[in-house]
């Protein structure tokens, strides 16, 4: 897909590169379709063969990402991109991150609603005194919700210990990444590698500790995905965050490999920047999580 129908004008500043046909979008669409179908049927039906469909779709998506980004990297390296083009990528990435913010907002919204409205109402607050009196007379509103209205009990995850450690790790990782970024802009390659490499490492440590925390929650604390609204919000928020950290770590790892291969220049390194924005965003989400899920 490299034959490019390229449209250049004499005016360099406003030159805009329009790529020619590409196989990757349709590959990506098929990949997503297979993943969605596989996941849906697997969940609905429970039959294991569908998990293969999901897996197969994911492989296609990975294949597509390699191919697509490969194209973009080649185009960028051949100097087809202008500053305007770079802006398009940057803005695109920012809006993508904004959409992610809104996704998390839905779950934070659920958390706030539950804490401020649903649980107190079940406990008799607001205009819902009768709800408590007639339906849930035993229930005492309390957050963390360790005893649900139907009497399921669990334990709340304390913020000291692993979560605190993870907070520190993520904060440090943001610093190391920034260090790598600044070094890149100054053209100091070794420091860039160091900063980026450390960030990837910290990301992996974070994930390991998170898994550790989950195992602890499931096996010793009786805190599971299905133990009432506390467990629901806890696992979905930290879970989706963890998924984003996983993705972020992979992205940073790929960037690391690209730095090793000598991609990126102090002036042009959109890929690096996008990855770093993503990482900082994931970091901020964690801070909110730490405050609203663990501490308060």
């Amino acid at each position, binding site marked *: 897909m490299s034959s490019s129908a390229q449209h250049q004008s004499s005016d360099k500043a406003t030159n805009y590169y329009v790529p020619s046909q590409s196989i990757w979008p349709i590959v990506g669409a098929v990949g997503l379709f297979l993943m969605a179908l596989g996941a849906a049927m697997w969940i609905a039906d429970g039959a294991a063969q569908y998990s293969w469909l999901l897996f197969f779709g994911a492989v296609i998506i990975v294949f597509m990402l390699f191919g697509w980004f490969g194209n973009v990297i080649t185009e960028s390296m051949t100097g087809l991109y202008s500053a305007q083009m770079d802006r398009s990528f940057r803005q695109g990435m920012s809006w993508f991150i904004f959409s992610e913010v809104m996704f998390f907002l839905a779950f934070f919204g659920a958390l706030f609603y539950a804490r401020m409205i649903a649980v107190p109402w079940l406990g008799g607050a607001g205009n819902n005194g009768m*709800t408590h009196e007639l339906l849930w007379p035993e229930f005492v509103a309390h957050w963390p919700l360790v005893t649900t209205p139907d009497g399921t009990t669990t334990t709340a995850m304390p913020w000291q210990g692993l979560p605190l450690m993870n907070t520190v790790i993520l904060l440090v990782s943001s610093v190391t990444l920034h260090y790598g970024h600044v070094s890149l802009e100054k053209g100091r390659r070794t420091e860039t590698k160091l900063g980026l490499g450390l960030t990837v490492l910290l990301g992996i440590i974070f994930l390991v500790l998170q898994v550790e925390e989950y195992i602890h929650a499931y096996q010793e604390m009786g805190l599971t995905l299905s133990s009432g609204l506390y467990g629901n919000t806890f696992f979905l928020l930290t879970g989706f965050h963890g998924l984003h950290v996983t993705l972020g770590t992979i992205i940073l790892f790929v960037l690391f490999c690209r730095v090793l291969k000598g991609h990126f220049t102090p002036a042009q390194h959109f890929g690096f920047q996008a990855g770093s924005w993503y990482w900082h965003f994931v970091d901020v989400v964690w801070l909110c999580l730490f405050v609203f899920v663990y501490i308060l």
Partner: protein
Amino acid sequence: MSQLNLCLLRWQWGCLLVCSMLYATQVSAKSMPFNLTEGVTDISQQVYDLHMTIFIICCVIGLVVFAAMFWAIIHHRKDKGAQAAQFHENTKVEIIWTAIPFVILIGMAIPATKTLIAMEDPSNADLTIQVTGSQWKWHYKYFGHDVEFYSLLASRQDQIHNQKKKRENYLLEVDYPLVLPVGKKVRFLVTSEDVIHSWWVPAFAVKKDANPGFINEAWTRINEPGIYRGQCAELCGKDHGFMPIVVIAKPQEEFDLWLAAQQQKAIEAKAEEQTMLAMSMDMDEMMQLGEQVYNKHCAACHQPNGEGLAGVFPALKGSQMVTQDVAAHIDIVVNGKSGTAMQAFAKQLTLKELAAVIGYERNAWGNNTGDVIQPAQVKAAMQQKDQ
């Protein structure tokens, strides 16, 4: 001008068409009101007035705006030689037509706020009734009186399937209507056992969602005796269209008599339950009663032919539980299965009815197990569960 003529002509045709259709489809004698009901409570009257006020305001605004537009359409046409002016803004005008609607809105908001605040005050009620929706029936419980009952659609399947002529109040009739006193403030505590329903009687201007796990409050004070009909107003599954509400409003004395009679009936029913334990049904009686109960309470989901709806409601015909394991069969009918649409029928049916319907299922549609189930058997299973 020709276009406009054409337009008018087409409209005349349209109207003619509508009229002829109206005539052609004259299938029922009962005519439909074309406006909101004024209802039979002070609140519903206020709501109606509010409705008419905003409606008329909207009509007036609409008339003004459309008049201006059609004036332009008629007079400022190119084929009449109109030359286009070139003005394209006027701050003064724009401010005016931002401000005027704003003022009009304030005019609407004030009475609306008053009415709303009055509607949302259920305090100091004379009578409290818990209204519980479930798929697809209403349950009413009179607080402080030992009266409670289920209220189900009374229109029959053969009417719904066009095999019998539909009665006048088709789909708006129930077996046991809610009975309320006139002139008293009645508070409703609305909730649900499964999905969200909504309890709505237009004549009272009361519509409140029945949310499972929560209780909503609403109230009414009926001014005139009569029969008032409503329907469930929140999609609640397959038979959402088939769970009507009927309220009979009676003067206080008649209401008291009715209430006393109901209490008496409840006591008698309890006594009968005891005697029933000692009785035994034969196969014919069981099948006959069982079929009645089945069609009324079970057929909505499991279908009259016992085949259910694939993937939604299981077939009872040939079901392993129904043809073999009696204990499990009794258990699921009596206690339901939580987290599914299969509800507990212990409260809804008498022991005899329970026994009959279980027995019926075990012998109908070729299940032919030959089992006869007795009330005592069901009672025993219930007691076992209690321990």
